[in-house]
């Protein structure tokens, strides 16, 4: 059985769901950020699979993936800087305890 587009899309969906579950349930802000990276990777797999199977000669999906990687790198840098700042102020990065703006 050869590998088709559906295989890659279902794999990307599984990875995205795992990342979604992690981002919703974990308390450590760093693990939440790691789950978001997982979700971005799942989207990248779907993009590259579409590029490979539907427009093999245009490479549009791979170009989109490059921009997603740029945004993910910027997001990781700013997110981890925010986490370190919160830790300095409050000595914790438990997302359930950082609730200053919660009503």
């Amino acid at each position: 059985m050869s590998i088709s587009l559906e295989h890659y899309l279902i794999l990307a969906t599984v990875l995205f769901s795992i990342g979604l579950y992690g981002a919703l349930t974990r308390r450590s802000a760093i693990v939440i950020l790691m789950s978001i990276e997982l979700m971005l990777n799942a989207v990248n797999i779907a993009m590259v699979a579409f590029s490979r199977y539907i427009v093999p000669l245009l490479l549009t999906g791979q170009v989109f993936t490059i921009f997603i990687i740029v945004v993910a790198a910027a997001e990781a840098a700013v997110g981890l800087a925010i986490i370190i700042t919160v830790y300095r102020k409050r000595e914790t990065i438990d997302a359930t305890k950082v609730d200053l703006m919660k009503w």
Partner: protein
Amino acid sequence: MGITIAFWVMAVIAVLAALSVVLLRNVFRAALSLVLCFLAVAGLYITLSADFLAAVQVLIYVGAIAVLIILAIMLTRDVPHGSLGNRLQIPAFIVAVLFLGVAVYAVVNTSWSIAGVAPQAPTTSALAGRLFGEDGFVLPLEIAPVLLLAAILGAIVLVREK
């Protein structure tokens, strides 16, 4: 045949590593599992004949982002507390499974217009042509460095000692 075996091996590694990122109590081990998952995704890019993206994945995700995450774990001394769950475990599980079901249903029941053309073998120069060439992505390419610069400045300002 080789592609098929490589896909299944990489897919199983990626899913198991992703599950251990989410489920492991030890934050440091979760970060190492995340590195393994990134490497498996790089392997998947190779099975999709996206060689440039596989190299970029290893350089940026495995090289830079993983080091940044491990550095943040070290700086926040979060390892002893572990990665606990909050009160949303069951609703979040239901939401994730619902999303998985709906998305898989949509994927299986869509008739994709598969192009029968073989993919380009070395993608690096073709990608450069797409990014810099005529009708390409020059404007997003100019905006991306501005975003990176803003993110770097923001990170420096946020963590600077007063």
